[in-house]
């Protein structure tokens, strides 16, 4: 107890206040012995008492206590540890979460670590390439890797002298990723890809600028261009060189992501997209919502939800027809996307007549009902490019006769048995 009292006294001495050690001791004694308060709680309570008595603002006192004991990045080894770092902002990343203000990499001479600044920290943004003293950041562990979190108890101070970063240059745009064929792409790497935009999708998320499919001679792959990449839009049917894109895997599917480090160059050539046509036979067992008569945003072709585009807000939509169907073979299911031309052909309904039908019934749902009525429950063979879980149907054939050969074969098998 005597020791505790001495340490409290020492701390006040540093602020130029001489608190009689007997006073401290008697207060501690009362709390610990008489009121059974744990000693660390008692210590805090007594300290706060004297802070108040001498009118010292609490935060001033505690900040002084935490004067930097600098930690090197290589020494960040403990989850939950508080640290003060002198580091350079090596890279800023796309930030995907609204409660995060910044995310990226910090480096010093010993190593590099991921950092996250929470929005509620209310700190000015860090600039890439600048060096800072970051006080009171917390070490966290995620996916077995350490990272530091900048929260509202943290403070940052820009340093005029740059911090040396060990381990070379980590800025990916400093070098260009290798040009690869789409079919060869695998997850978790940077790459450069050339291809033709096969299709642009309507997309429902404001953080996505464009999403769709791009293909080269070897295959077709999904791409996502994040709004924060600040890259220009691409057009359907045009060919582009996409430099320094990230290839990752999601749900077992490889896809391309364009971010701030990526670039898009328009190519003059017309890349021929390799066909990986896929054929499926089964019964159509469902036509999903979002099928039938829909409206699309005139600017980005996204399907509108309640008359509004996710990107461009309330717009005067353009009518379109499409079918999102589910086919089922009895042992597997297959999702299929059928575009307007094919929908018009197989359902025997034109876009104009669909609009008229909907207007007549004051309900676009009648078009969906008609499609279900015409198509669900029947057997079809479809083929087209496969992408994600969909087949983009370019050929749609109703089964028009019974397979007599199969019938005879099955019957003869049963006769034998």
């Amino acid at each position, binding site marked *: 107890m005597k020791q505790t009292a001495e340490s409290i006294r020492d701390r006040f001495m540093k602020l130029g206040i001489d608190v009689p050690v007997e006073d401290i001791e008697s207060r501690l004694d009362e709390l610990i012995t008489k009121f059974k308060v744990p000693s660390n709680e008692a210590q805090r309570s007594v300290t706060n008492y004297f802070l108040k008595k001498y009118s010292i603002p609490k935060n001033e006192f505690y900040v002084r206590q935490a004067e930097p004991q600098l930690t090197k990045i290589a020494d960040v080894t403990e989850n939950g540890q508080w640290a003060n770092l002198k580091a350079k902002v090596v890279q800023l990343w796309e930030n995907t979460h609204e409660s995060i203000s910044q995310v990226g990499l910090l480096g010093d001479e010993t190593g590099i670590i991921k950092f996250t600044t929470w929005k509620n920290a209310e700190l000015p943004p860090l600039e890439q390439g600048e060096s800072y003293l970051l006080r009171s950041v917390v070490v966290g562990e995620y996916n077995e890797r350490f990272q530091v979190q900048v929260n509202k108890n943290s403070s940052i101070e820009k340093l005029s002298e740059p911090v040396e970063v060990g381990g070379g240059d980590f800025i990916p745009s400093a070098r260009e990723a290798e040009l690869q064929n789409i079919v060869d792409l695998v997850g978790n790497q940077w790459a450069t890809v050339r291809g033709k935009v096969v299709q642009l999708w309507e997309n429902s998320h404001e953080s996505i600028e464009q999403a769709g499919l791009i293909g080269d001679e070897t295959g077709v792959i999904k791409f996502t261009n994040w709004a924060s990449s600040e890259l220009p839009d691409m057009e359907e049917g045009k060919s582009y060189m996409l430099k320094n894109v990230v290839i990752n895997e999601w749900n077992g599917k490889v896809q391309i992501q364009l971010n701030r480090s990526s670039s898009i160059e328009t190519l003059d050539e017309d890349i021929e997209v390799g066909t990986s046509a896929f054929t499926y036979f089964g*019964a159509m067992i469902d036509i999903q919502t979002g099928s039938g008569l829909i409206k699309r945003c005139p600017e980005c072709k996204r399907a509108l939800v309640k008359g509004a585009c996710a990107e461009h807000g309330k717009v005067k939509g353009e009518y379109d027809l499409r079918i999102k169907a589910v086919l*089922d073979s009895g042992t597997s299911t297959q999702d299929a996307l059928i575009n307007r031309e094919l929908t018009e052909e197989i359902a025997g309904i034109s876009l104009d007549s669909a609009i008229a039908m909907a207007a007549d019934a004051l309900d676009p749902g009648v078009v969906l009902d008609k499609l279900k009525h015409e198509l669900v*429950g029947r057997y079809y063979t479809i083929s087209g490019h496969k992408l994600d879980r969909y087949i983009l149907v370019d050929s749609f054939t109703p089964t028009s006769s019974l397979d*007599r050969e199969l019938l005879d074969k099955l019957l003869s098998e049963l006769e034998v*048995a």
Partner: protein
Amino acid sequence: MAGFFREVSRRVFSQELKDSNLTSRDESDQYAPQYLLTPTGAKVNRIFIVGTLIEKEDIGTDSEYWRGRVSDPTGSFLVYAGQYQPEAAQFLAECELPAFVAVIGKTSTYTTDDGNVLTSIRPESIQQVDELTRNLWVLDTAKQTLERIRAVEAQEDPNSKLAKEHYSTDTEIYREMVKKALESLKDNA
């Protein structure tokens, strides 16, 4: 894909569905789907049938509750549609008998007081179709049933083993059933 996947709609003749009484579901998850294992080892949650709607009756007391009977070459299925299957109930209310129909739905079972298990279908969709579609379904279902019969005879996968164990499946009976169904296609050739 982890989490969600669409249940495949199985092809089973009415006779086989009627013989089925083994249900299973993951008890630890209240949203887990219920499956009905048939004597040839089809693990059915969703089912696709095409047949002839031969009877319909509104058996509801307060609100409409429709029961339809759909026949195939081996017997008939019972289809029940109430307020939670509005499109199917509306179809049953308005259609004329008899009619070829394609039904997509979930199987459900009911155990009577004396321990019998009755199987029926809760439709997600009923559509009127043509005779060709009905014949295609019979051929499709015959083919898939025969494949399952072979699997039961070979005892090659867990479902066939479980089916054999539970029903002591006599595959001859089901071969005969498939044959009968296929011969009906021959007749009206």
